[in-house]
């Protein structure tokens, strides 16, 4: 027959539809003003992070004139659009390069936390019994530590670096993700299609990864968005405590830490990174709200 459709080999068609669906989802976002604001805030910082190497910025670590006010003229005739900090580094440049850092590490750390959390959650939820007991017990141990203390322990053991941040965030977030996924899976695994997969003798991992997890994606996308916000907070907190990304590279938390003692006579070097941080976190939270709103409406 001429209308026979190839679907198994016709992967491009499928991919196209996925891209199309993504844009359709974006179009839906227009109906949620809150989500739209969030999306624009995030897109702004993502653009900044991507364009950082191409913008006419000073080297973020170059030491020039300290304590310059906003809009002051630089020694080379340029302008410090947002002034300089106590060491004489350009604040605009440090904020934009800092955005790149925080976005990369936050995304990566959240991703790792998600992989670990989802695997733990789907295992505990689907297998139940002993697997559930053990995974939940481990999760409870990590959840019982206050986040900062957990991070201090990890950084103290592993030393400060981006990777340590990833480990710290994973330890703190994965147990929470595990709980969400476990709850979703407990519900999903009673569906007939799971029963159908079992009756054709599928392996447990096939059922967990191919049959169960894709159906949990709705609530997880909203949570991932919120969690990215938390991770940005976490990275800034670690930076503020001196446990985050090592200096001198620009990091918003570190910038705050250095500026706070001097707040009285160089306010802008404190408020500006704080505002950047707040706007990015707000962006993630608003986007999550918007996504939730849209997903509930359908």
């Amino acid at each position: 027959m001429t209308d026979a459709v190839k679907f198994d080999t016709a992967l491009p068609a499928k991919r196209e539809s996925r891209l199309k669906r993504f844009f359709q989802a974006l179009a839906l976002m227009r109906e949620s003003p809150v989500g739209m604001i969030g999306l624009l805030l995030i897109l702004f910082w993502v653009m900044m992070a991507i364009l950082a190497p191409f913008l006419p910025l000073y080297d973020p670590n170059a030491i020039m004139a300290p304590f310059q006010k906003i809009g002051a003229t630089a020694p080379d005739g340029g302008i410090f659009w947002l002034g300089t900090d106590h060491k004489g580094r350009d604040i605009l440049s440090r904020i934009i390069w800092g955005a790149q850092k925080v976005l990369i590490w936050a995304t990566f750390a959240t991703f790792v936390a998600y992989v670990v959390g989802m695997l733990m959650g789907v295992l505990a939820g689907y297998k139940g019994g002993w697997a559930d007991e053990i995974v939940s017990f481990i999760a409870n141990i990590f959840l019982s530590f206050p986040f900062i203390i957990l991070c201090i322990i990890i950084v103290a053991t592993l030393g400060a670096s981006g990777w340590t941040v990833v480990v710290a965030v994973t330890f703190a977030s994965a147990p929470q993700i595990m709980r969400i996924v476990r709850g979703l899976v407990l519900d999903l695994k009673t569906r007939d299609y799971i029963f159908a997969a079992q009756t054709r003798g599928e392996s447990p991992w096939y059922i967990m990864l191919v049959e169960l997890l894709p159906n949990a994606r709705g609530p997880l996308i909203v949570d991932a968005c919120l969690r990215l916000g938390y991770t940005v907070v976490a990275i800034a907190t670690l930076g503020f405590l001196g446990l985050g990304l090592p200096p001198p590279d620009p990091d918003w938390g570190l910038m705050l830490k250095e500026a706070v003692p001097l707040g009285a006579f160089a306010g802008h070097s404190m408020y500006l990174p704080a505002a950047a941080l707040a706007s990015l976190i707000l962006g993630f939270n608003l986007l999550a709200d918007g996504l939730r709103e849209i997903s509930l409406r359908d």
Partner: protein
Amino acid sequence: MLPTTAVTPVLECKNVNISYYTRAGEIPAVIDFNLTLMPGESMGIVGESGCGKSTVALAIMQYMGKNGRVKSGQILFNGRDLQTMGEDELRSIRGSQISMVYQEPMASLNPSMKIGEQLMEVPLYHESVTEAEAKQRSLDMLAAVRLPDPQRIMDAYPHQISGGQQQRVVIAMALLSKPALLLLDEPTTALDVTVEAGIVQLIKDISKQFGTSMIYISHNLGLILETCDRITVMYSGEAVEAGAVQSVFNEMRHPYTRGLFASIPLPGTNKNSRPLVPIRGQLPLPQNRPQGCYFSPRCDFFQAGRCDTKGGISMRPVSDEQRHDVRCVRFEDIDWANYRPIGLSGDKVEIGKTVLEVKHMKKYYELKDSSLIAMIKGKKVQYVKANEDINLVAHEAETVAIVGESGCGKSTFAKVLMGLEEATEGEVILNGLELSHTPVQQRKAQTVALLQMVFQNPFDTLNPSHTVGSQIARVIKKFDIESDPDKINQRVMELLDLVKLPRDFALRRPRQLSGGQKQRIGIARAFAGRPSVVVADEPVSALDVSVQAAVTGLLTDIQRNLKTTLLFISHDLSVVRYVSDRIVVMYLGHIMEQGTTDEIFNPPYHPYTEALLSAVPIADTSVKKRHIVLEGELPSPVNPPSGCPFQTRCPRKMCAICETQLPALQHTDTGHAIMCHIPIAELRKVEQVFQVEAAN
């Protein structure tokens, strides 16, 4: 015109139009709806899902929600328009003069309040009575809905009583304020058949005893026949036929009503000689309703120029006396007497060799009790006796039905067969291979492929994340039927042809399919591995009536052509009688009776089968049926009764022997087996449950 003009109707709907307003725009849900309900009358509203019957009920309650609105028309309650009343006035009417009973009893009761408190609230809120009086009235009402031991029920929380008892409590609550109008929205759909029979009996008596007018919403024509005086048939937002029950059932005039009746398995239909006739096509979405008659694209009597005129088609009177109206322009032209729609008929297939044999199969689940009391008493393990001594043989091309109510062990039996649970004792032999202790992962792909399953819930049966085609393809790959992608693709197309769906459905996702289409894909998936036995677990019970006929027909047709053995698990005896060659009746894990379909439906009956048969609502006025309502509740399989499992509810219970000794299976010469202490000769004397009156 009518003898009742002097009396004000309790409820009158005049040209009511109801719309929902959504993102996609206005969706007309109910169009030009008229209804007159006299005091003491009961009106059944019947229709398939999406026909607007629940919207009518919500409009009467004025509970339309944010996006629904009665666009035009009047809803008069005792002569007063509900639309013009304020929120305060409506609140005083709801619950006191108009009450509603919903489908899910548990959702209507507050789980954190004792039943007594919830009942007493009704008179305390709506009338000024003392607490003692409210309590007395609640007790009386619980007795009136025939709940045993009302005092105990008053002190219980909702979860402590059974589903049937909960629904009786909800009905009692609705009646406490002596309403003039009672709305029942599918009140028995969530209940077992024998429990349903009790509730139906109760509803019938209520209208007599209290003189309450009722609107009974249901998809089941048989229930309407048993409970109502008048009926309104709805289709796609319109009432298409209305009138006195007898008049509509005996002289139906609308092609849709005809279609509905042709698609339900009534006594007399048979998969070989008198097959069901499904209504072709699908219910149109409200946005895509055709011009003129909404049923026209699916109607055999469509006439261009008459049925597709601009503007709606109005109701026309068939008979004034019966207040029988129909929304069809051609109802007088159609010669119903000589109209014989043709369904999927087929020859009776030869039943072949034995394919599946189950011998003395037993399945107990362990319940570990780790409480302190259990440890002190030393009773740590209890058993749920899900299956006891199951013996069963199924042959090639045969359909064996397993019938029973919830908790009878039919699903456990399916799980053991499929290898998801291990049998505690006994043998399961498929094509000569013993499987009772081989979990599904340890079975060979070919063995797994031989035994496949069709599931109940169409909304759950397919994984929403994957395309329909890839889900069928996965089965083919998994069972090594084909490995070359092109050949797999070819096979998927063949399977879609087999279940009569367009080939481009392969690329669709389950949410783009209707319930019936999903179930067809479920059937395609089950037959993908060329199985020799297919277990169908209530495959049509969640579908609409007209779709049920099509899916049942498809399933039996495929089975007939491929000579597959079908194990048909169901609680619906009318469907079972239609499809099956042999029937196994289960109760509390035991097989109570097994035999050919004729043997089960004729005496000698097991007393449980007898009750089960009498509980089936039949939408045929020419069938006379005996009514047997079982007393008591289904016992728990953890703690089954001593002796015969059915003895606690059996209307034919004899004496001590029933309580002490498990009855032996009695066999007739033909292989019909009954597990009962009453001798077969005695049971043979029992009267038929149904009697079909000779059509004149």
